[in-house]
Every structure is written in structure tokens, then in C-alpha cells.
């Protein structure tokens, strides 16, 4: 079983990339007692993640319920909108959120007009707002998938029994939420534990610093590698806890059937559902629209440094997507539960921790800036691995189940089978996985912040620097460029997959 061996080696390499830097970190950690600032960072990390998870899921329930109950023109667009934040570069979203919720933004104008005190987009409220922006759509999709998994017969039965809203809730909706919500909460919580870019841009200061941000600051501002390493160990422990959490809670499945027509019998509340859907769509769309409206005119006048950074980002994203695809394919096609588990666990790994370890490991030998782009691409590939596996593992399983016996009975050799059957059969999922990996890498602002110097930057980092220098017009222009590149890369890969697979999919249905 050479396929299995390859999968095992791949999983071992992924584990080594995650754990190796951790050993380096452990070796250089300052064993001194935790300082008050360390405790504050830990506390803030947990509090903001818990708040973000709770608010995201709480708001997602009525939105998902409304989407599950209503058929209306544009429903497909709203559902698609709910997937957009996932590939939207964090730094772009932050810029958009500042534009909408900042001191001079539209949200505070409305609040002031109503007579309410203004909200702040910085500090705890800002970090949580950004996390809700990213994760309310995710949670809504997870819950919606659960809703759509409810058998139509059960809804029909409830309707034929004349169940009112309360009875429907008790019979159908509550049992559904009880199975879906814990997983959704856990996923959002874990994601919010390791979202460096949000903390970097909207957090900061003694009261709003996450552990990851503290690592970064200890490194770059205080040159205190001992403290940075100690904090990295704390962050790693958080990640380990998150993995444990993942084992305890059943993880929700994100089914593909988001476009399914909703069914519903009786009941009212149409106006309320419409308002909820409109508010959610507005919340997700407004920041992006704000960025595009203000930035589009500045794209043509962007300085050369931004274009150089864009080139770096393109190269890094392409290499990262290719690497991620190789890793994911090796695991999905040859691997079993063990390898898949290792790959999926990468979701809890902090890029900052890996970055810290790699930085400490290479600094005796080379200038880390030399390695900025390769390291970024490599770390991004591992970060995207769980999402790529989500597409590729079921696809590989499907090919094995439906075409495995036929391939075997024809006597196909392993590589022949891969070339003729497995890879072409997975084309659609390969395209989607590559698209996600490329878009995530394109928008990533994490490990690059560690390694880059003035010459070598990716587009998100360059944009962050422009924001820091208060060159907002150029930052807005760069944001438009970055958004176009991230979505363009996704569309390119995803479209490639769908083009070849469209016919084969029709076939599979016909043959079934």
C-alpha cells in the first residue's frame, strides 16, 4: 500500500511542521513566572473568542431559520453572500468595518441620530464585531445545513398534525439546534482563538491584546524572545484545548445543498424573516461595498511598492495552493482516519506559533526576511489543509465507492488509476480546494508580518503598512486590488473545476 505510506509521510510532515517549531519554542521559552500582561492577554483571548462565538451563533439562528423557511428571488445571492467573508481577506474586511462602524462611519451616524451613544470599532467591541462579521455567515450556513437535513416528511407530519409555532419549535427546531449549535459554537470559538490579523488591526493596548498579538509585540517591539516563546507555548496549549473541544463536540457538516428550495407549511412571520435576512445581508455586504466605493478610483494611482507586493502575493498564493493541494490529495486518496485527523487538526494551529518557532530556528543561519515568502506560502498551505480536506476526502471516498471495483477488475495500476479515474473524477473538488487555498493565502496577514522586511511584503502586509501610515486612499485602493485578486484566484480555480466536472456530474446523476 504505497498510497497509504505516502499519506502517512504527508501527515507526518504536516505534524512535524506544526510540532517542530513548537519544540524550538519550548527550548527558548523564558521559564519565568507569568506577568500580569500575560494573564491579561490570555484572559482577553478567551473572553473575545467566547463572546464572538456566542454572539455569532445567537444571531445566526434566526437568520438561518429565515433562510430555511423562505423562498424568495435573490435567495441564492444571499446564500452566496454568506460564503463570501470566508475568502475575503481579513485586512480588507477590517478596513471596511472601520469605514462603516468607525467614528465617522454610517453606523455611528445612525446611532447618534437615534440618540444612542457611539460604538467603538477598536478594542473588545471592535474585535468581536469583526469576528461576528466573519463568523455569523459561517454559523448561519452551518445551522442552515442542519435545517435542510431535516427530512421533509417530518415537517409535513408536523404540519398535518396542525402544530403551531411553539409545537414546531419543540418537535423539530429545538432538537435540531441542540445537535447543530454546540458544533457551530466550537468551530467559531476555535477560529477566534487564532485570528491574528483582527487583533493586530483592531485590538492592542493593555486591555485588548490577544496572546498572538502579545507574541508579535514581544518579538518586534521588545525583542524579548523568551517571553514570546512563553506566550507561544500558552497559545499552543489553547490550540491543544481546542482540539480536545473538537473531540468532545460533534462537528457540524457543511453540506453542499445550500441552494435547495425551502419547504414550509403554514405559519406567519414573513415580515420578520424579511427584515432579518435584509439586516444580515446588509451587515455582510456594507463593509465590502464601502471599501469598493472609496477605493476603486485609487487603484490606478497605486505606488509601485503595492504592485510589487501584489506580485509577491500572487506567487506565494499559487505556490501555497499547489502545496496544499499536494498534501491534501496525498491524504485524501491514500489516507485513513489517522491522516485525515492530523490534517484537520491544523485548524487549531496558530500560524504565529509556527512563525515564532521557525523564526527562532532560522535566525542563527539566515536573515529571516530572505525566507519571508517561502515560509508564508508553506504555513498558509498547512492552514488551508483542513478546508481542502473537507472537499477532497468525501470526493476520494465517493470515487473509491463507485468506481473502485471497476478499476480493480480492469487491472489498472496505481498511477494509471490516479491519472485516468481518481483525479479526473475529483476535478470539481480539486478546483474548489485550490480556489480556497489560493484565496486564503492571498489574503493572509499572519506569519508574513514576522518575517518580512521593508523590501519583501505581500499585499495584505503592504496594505497594513499603508493603513499604519494613514495613507487611507492608497490603503483603500490596495484593498480593492487585494479583494479582486483573492476572489479572482478563487473563481479561476473553482471555475476550472466546475467546467470539466459539469458534464461528468450530470452523468453520475443519470447513471444513478
Amino acid at each position, binding site marked *: 500500500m504505497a498510497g497509504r505510506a505516502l499519506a502517512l509521510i504527508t501527515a507526518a510532515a504536516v505534524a512535524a511542521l506544526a510540532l517542530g517549531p513548537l519544540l524550538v519554542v519550548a527550548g527558548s521559552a523564558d521559564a519565568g513566572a507569568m506577568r500580569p500582561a500575560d494573564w491579561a492577554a490570555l484572559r482577553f483571548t478567551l473572553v473575545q473568542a467566547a463572546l464572538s462565538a456566542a454572539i455569532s451563533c445567537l444571531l445566526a439562528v434566526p437568520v438561518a431559520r429565515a433562510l430555511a423557511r423562505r423562498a424568495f428571488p435573490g435567495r441564492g445571492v444571499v446564500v452566496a453572500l454568506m460564503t463570501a467573508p470566508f475568502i475575503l481577506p481579513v485586512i480588507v474586511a477590517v478596513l471596511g468595518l472601520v469605514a462603516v462602524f468607525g467614528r465617522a462611519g454610517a453606523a455611528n451616524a445612525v446611532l447618534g441620530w437615534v440618540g444612542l451613544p457611539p460604538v467603538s470599532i477598536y478594542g473588545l467591541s471592535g474585535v468581536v464585531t469583526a469576528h461576528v462579521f466573519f463568523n455569523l455567515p459561517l454559523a448561519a450556513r452551518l445551522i442552515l445545513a442542519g435545517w435542510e437535513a431535516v427530512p421533509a416528511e417530518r415537517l409535513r407530519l408536523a404540519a398535518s398534525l396542525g402544530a403551531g409555532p411553539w409545537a414546531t419549535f419543540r418537535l423539530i427546531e429545538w432538537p435540531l439546534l441542540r445537535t447543530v449549535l454546540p458544533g457551530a459554537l466550537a468551530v467559531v470559538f476555535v477560529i477566534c482563538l487564532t485570528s491574528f490579523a483582527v487583533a493586530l488591526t483592531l485590538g492592542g493596548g493593555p486591555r485588548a491584546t490577544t496572546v498572538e498579538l502579545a507574541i508579535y509585540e514581544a518579538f518586534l517591539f521588545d525583542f524579548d524572545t523568551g517571553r514570546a516563546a512563553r506566550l507561544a507555548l500558552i497559545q499552543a496549549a489553547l490550540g491543544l484545548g481546542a482540539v480536545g473541544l473538537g473531540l468532545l463536540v460533534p462537528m457540524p457538516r457543511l453540506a453542499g445543498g445550500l441552494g435547495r428550495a425551502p419547504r414550509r407549511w403554514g405559519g406567519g412571520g414573513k415580515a420578520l424573516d424579511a427584515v432579518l435576512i435584509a439586516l444580515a445581508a446588509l451587515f455582510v455586504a456594507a463593509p465590502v461595498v464601502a471599501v469598493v466605493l472609496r477605493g476603486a478610483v485609487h487603484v490606478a494611482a497605486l505606488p509601485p511598492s503595492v504592485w510589487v507586493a501584489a506580485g509577491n502575493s500572487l506567487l506565494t498564493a499559487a505556490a501555497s495552493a499547489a502545496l496544499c493541494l499536494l498534501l491534501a490529495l496525498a491524504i485524501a486518496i491514500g489516507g485513513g482516519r489517522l491522516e485525515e485527523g492530523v490534517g484537520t487538526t491544523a485548524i487549531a494551529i496558530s500560524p504565529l506559533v509556527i512563525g515564532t518557532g521557525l523564526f527562532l530556528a532560522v535566525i542563527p543561519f539566515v536573515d529571516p526576511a530572505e525566507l519571508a515568502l517561502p515560509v508564508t506560502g508553506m504555513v498558509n498551505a498547512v492552514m488551508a489543509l483542513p478546508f481542502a480536506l473537507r472537499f477532497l476526502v468525501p470526493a476520494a471516498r465517493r470515487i473509491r465507492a463507485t468506481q473502485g471495483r471497476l478499476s480493480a477488475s*480492469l487491472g489498472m495500476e496505481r498511477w494509471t488509476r490516479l491519472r485516468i479515474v481518481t483525479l479526473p473524477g475529483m476535478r470539481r473538488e480539486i478546483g474548489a480546494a485550490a480556489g480556497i487555498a489560493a484565496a486564503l493565502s492571498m489574503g493572509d496577514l499572519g506569519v508574513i508580518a514576522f518575517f518580512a522586511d521593508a523590501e519583501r511584503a505581500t499585499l495584505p502586509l503592504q496594505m497594513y503598512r499603508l493603513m499604519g501610515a494613514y495613507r487611507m486612499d492608497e490603503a483603500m485602493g490596495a484593498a480593492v486590488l487585494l479583494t479582486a485578486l483573492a476572489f479572482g484566484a478563487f473563481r479561476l480555480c473553482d471555475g476550472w473545476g466546475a467546467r470539466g466536472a459539469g458534464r461528468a456530474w450530470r452523468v453520475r446523476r443519470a447513471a444513478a
Partner: protein
Amino acid sequence: MLRLEGVRVEREGWFLRADLAVPKGAAVAVMGPSGAGKSTLLSVIGGFEEHAGHVLWEEAPIDGLPPGRRPVATLFQDGNLFPHLSARRNVALGVRPDGRLGARDRARVDAALEDAGLGRFGDRLPGDLSGGQMARVALARIAVQDRPILLLDEAFSGLGPALKAEMLDRTVRLAAEGGRTLLMVTHEPEDARRICPETILVAEGIAHRPVGTEALLSDPPEALRAYLGT
């Protein structure tokens, strides 16, 4: 001669035993109640089932061989074609499983398609063909496969009665022309009568040695009687 010696498949609370022989070139039906192990019997011969005992072809054991190296071609109930490959490429895989054909091989593939009445459809994907055409593509592949044993596991069961009869007749002709040995799982006594002089009864954990189909069906044992409803 295809021989099964002391073959035994065991699963939790279920087993199948087979000690039987099928003469070379015979056409044999496999009948019995659902779940008795008809498909399992074919899987043992095809190499898809772990089992004890031995499977021999022409007195040489083949049970150590992977499915693709056995002298066996199988038509499954469904999934006999790769949906993303054209009819021609599907047939070509029967000549060379890596799909790399020389000029002679290509001519053979085209001839097989022509024989199946699919000369014009070589470039179509299976999904763009009718059910009957898909079945004919699969048969064209079997024709170029040169395997002396042919297994049909409820193949064509998705087709209507007339089409199914046509495909079975094509299969029998194919088997007769190549001197192939045919084993065919079927639920239809009529199909068995029409095509297979002998039948293997699979019931109550045992695959019996082949007996005359007519005699078996006119005086069925208890297990078969309940299944047939006669």
C-alpha cells in the same frame, strides 16, 4: 473448469460455503433468496471478497491474484462505465487498462464499438447515452477484454424487459463466440431458463453445485419455492 474448493466466507451471524465446479464454456445461472450470498459468490470469484478455501481456473489457483489479474471480467449492477470518459475510452480500458493504445488496439476498439452498433457514439460520454447504449458500451468493453470467465451480477436490471432480453442475448452470443464461461445472477426464472442450461442455487449458507435449470425450477426445493412464490 472453474472450481471452488472449500470456499467459506464468514460475517457476523452469516456465512457462505461453496464446493463446486463449472465446466469451461458453460452458461450457469445463480439463483436464490435475497441476502443468501449470490453476489458474494461472484465477488469471491472476481477477487473482491476475503475468503477461506481456493478458487481454481484450469487447475491453477487464482485466489492469490488481484481482481485485475484474474481471468475474470465482471458486469456489475451499475457503475460499469467511468462517467467522465467517452464511450471509446471506456472500451479502450478493456484492451489496456492504462488507456494507451497502438494503432492495432485502436482498430480493435473501433470494431467492438461498430459491432455494438455504437459506431457513431464513440465520442459521447456515458451520460449522453441511453441506458441501452450504456449497456452496449459495457459489453463492447467485455468483448475486447479477452477474459475467459464472465460474471454478471444482476447486470441490466435497470433496463426494461425488451432491452434487457436483447442485452442478455448479446452477452450469451459474446460468451459463446469466445468460448467464455458465464455465471449470471438473476431473479428471473425465465431468464435462467432461456439462457442457462444449468443453475447454481444459493440458499441457507450454501452455494450448491450446478444442476439442470429446468429440473430445478419445475421441482424447486423448499428454500427456492418460498423465494419464487410457487
